[in-house]
């Protein structure tokens, strides 16, 4: 506790800083450089946990815990959930499509970083008061006192913000059915009218060796019908094409039948 108040930190904290700091930077770099979103998310989660540790080291115990629970626990999971929803395997092409974008971005980033460093260095922040005196009356109590007195309006407003965000997320993702669902008869009539696909869609696995959801049904000519596979799988590109196999099987079947029939003919 007392070390926090000093200008220099304890050597333990220093060691912790240099090691974990390095890891955090590596995590951050991995976040922006990994091809797959899942990897990025995991790297970010790592960085966040390290940050939580730093919060603790800086005397922000409450924040440290919240960081782990809320950020790493909830928010990052939300990210992962969305990543899964969108397609976990779809690797993000790192190929740049906008001319000069990457170089400009790096240049800007570098310049910005240098500026920040220069600013911090220039500010001449040497003396740290430490939180010893403040935290002495109880850390969480201290926070609570501030939140419910000085920052009470901000706090209330953030509450409203959260509710709004929740409602907003629901509104954005929810699709209200605005009309009566079409009956089977109507669907059938529409098919006839449009003349695209007269019979009902083949069930998954029809004419197939596999009976899995990711295997498309085969049309009478043996080509796979992608319509028979769930849209999510389709967009993830996770359709297993078995038509070749099926055709081979069919051919083999015909061969066998022919052989048998031939034999029967021969036996006549």
């Amino acid at each position: 506790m007392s070390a926090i108040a000093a200008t220099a930190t304890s050597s333990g904290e220093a060691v912790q800083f240099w090691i974990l700091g390095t890891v955090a930077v590596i995590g951050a770099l991995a976040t922006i450089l990994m091809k797959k979103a899942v990897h990025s998310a995991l790297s970010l989660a790592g960085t966040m946990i390290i940050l939580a540790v730093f919060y603790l080291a800086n005397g922000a115990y409450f924040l440290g815990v919240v960081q782990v629970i809320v950020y790493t626990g909830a928010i990052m999971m939300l990210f992962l959930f969305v990543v899964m929803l969108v397609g976990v395997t779809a690797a993000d092409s790192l190929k740049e499509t906008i001319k000069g974008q990457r170089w400009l971005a790096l240049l800007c980033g570098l310049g910005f970083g240098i500026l920040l460093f220069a600013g911090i260095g220039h500010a001449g922040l040497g003396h740290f008061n430490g939180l010893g005196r403040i935290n002495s009356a109880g850390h969480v109590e201290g926070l609570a006192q501030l939140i419910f007195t000085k920052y009470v309006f901000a706090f209330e407003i953030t509450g409203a913000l959260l509710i709004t965000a929740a409602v907003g997320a629901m509104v954005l993702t929810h699709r209200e059915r605005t009309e009566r669902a079409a009956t089977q008869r109507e669907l059938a009539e529409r098919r006839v009218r449009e003349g695209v696909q007269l019979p009902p869609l083949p069930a998954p696995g029809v004419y197939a060796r596999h009976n899995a959801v990711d295997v498309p049904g085969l049309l009478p000519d043996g080509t796979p019908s992608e319509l028979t596979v769930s849209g999510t799988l389709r967009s993830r590109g996770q359709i297993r094409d078995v038509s070749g196999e099926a055709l081979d099987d069919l051919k083999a079947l015909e061969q066998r039948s022919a052989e048998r029939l031939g034999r029967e003919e021969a036996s006549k």
Partner: protein
Amino acid sequence: MNPVNYLYLAALLFTIGATGVLIRKNAIVLFMCVELMLNACNLAFVAFSRMHGNLDGQIIAFFTMVVAAAEVVVGLAIIVSLFRTRHSASVDDASLMKL
């Protein structure tokens, strides 16, 4: 070690996050980079809190987290609905601002 180093670290992380926003095309990763920047800011706030010897910095960091949570919720909802309509999470596909 001088605790100022935390600030340097925060600056570094912020810069990395910002650069990430600029070079990644996947909206989700992009969002993660924004989160990284927010976290870097939080670290700075916490360090400032220690520097000044009061809890205001931590309160601000706390608010930042709350706002970040709200933002993530809305942002991800947008990404999901975008994905539904465009079947892609790439921000470059939404170049609708072009004349």
